[in-house]
């Protein structure tokens, strides 16, 4: 029996950061990622009547965003010439004239590390979401946005002691959560 219900009013507060981080790490462009997140919410609203309740709200929104990211790459690749990989074998004065030298280097772990970082980001955000709203907000402002303690206190109307207590609780909970889900 479906147990999940949609609450579109809370989507932005609950999932916007998670979806945005997911999108930025896949399209590597903050403005575009923001548009994709917005389009995801629009598409979610449009297809909300078809939501069966089998998946969790976040899983459902992520599935929509994944389609949006794929559509984005399809769109840019369908533009003539952009998808072509041009290799000019003749005009080469640089090192590596032999084709073997152009083959991907097995020792180069950049791609793998990039994927690992994407997954790590998703795992951290998954854990941040489990924190109480205020703790998550303070942690994000301090750790991700790098805001000054004073600015956060002024914006949220708290004192520095409150802030450090919240940071302590958030960090302790995150360590526990990542210990269960990442290591």
């Amino acid at each position, binding site marked *: 029996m479906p147990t999940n219900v949609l609450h579109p009013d809370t*989507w932005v*507060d609950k999932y916007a*950061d998670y979806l945005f*981080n997911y999108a930025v790490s896949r399209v590597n462009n903050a403005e575009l990622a923001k548009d994709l*997140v917005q389009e995801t919410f629009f598409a979610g*609203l449009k297809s909300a009547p078809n939501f069966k309740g089998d998946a969790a709200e976040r899983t459902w929104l992520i599935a929509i965003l994944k389609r949006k990211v794929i559509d984005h790459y399809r769109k840019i690749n369908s533009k003539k010439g952009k998808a072509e990989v041009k290799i000019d074998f003749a005009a080469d004065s640089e090192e590596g004239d032999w084709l073997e030298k152009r083959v991907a280097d097995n020792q180069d772990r950049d791609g793998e590390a990039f994927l690992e970082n994407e997954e790590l980001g998703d795992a951290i955000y998954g854990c941040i979401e489990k924190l109480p709203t205020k703790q998550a907000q303070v942690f994000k402002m*301090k750790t*991700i946005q790098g805001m000054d303690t004073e600015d956060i206190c002024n914006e949220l109307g708290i004192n520095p002691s409150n802030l450090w207590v919240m940071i302590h609780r958030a*960090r302790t909970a995150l*360590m526990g959560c990542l210990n269960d889900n990442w290591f």
Partner: protein
Amino acid sequence: MISCDKASEICNKSQYKEAGFWDIWKLRFHILFCKHCSSHTKKNTYLTALCEKANLHTLSAKEKEAIKQRIKEQANS
């Protein structure tokens, strides 16, 4: 010697480079003798490293408000 609570506070501040020089010394001295705080400090520092490695992104409050507004407009249209 400082208490474990104080050590934890300094440890958290040091993750954001907001701990003073002497406070960091006090913390170092404390974790020489306190296994629990030593382990906590290691994990806490590792969490900072993971967050940096993951290169996390977030939307500002203003950007979220703008999205909320657009969703509202979309829902009403």
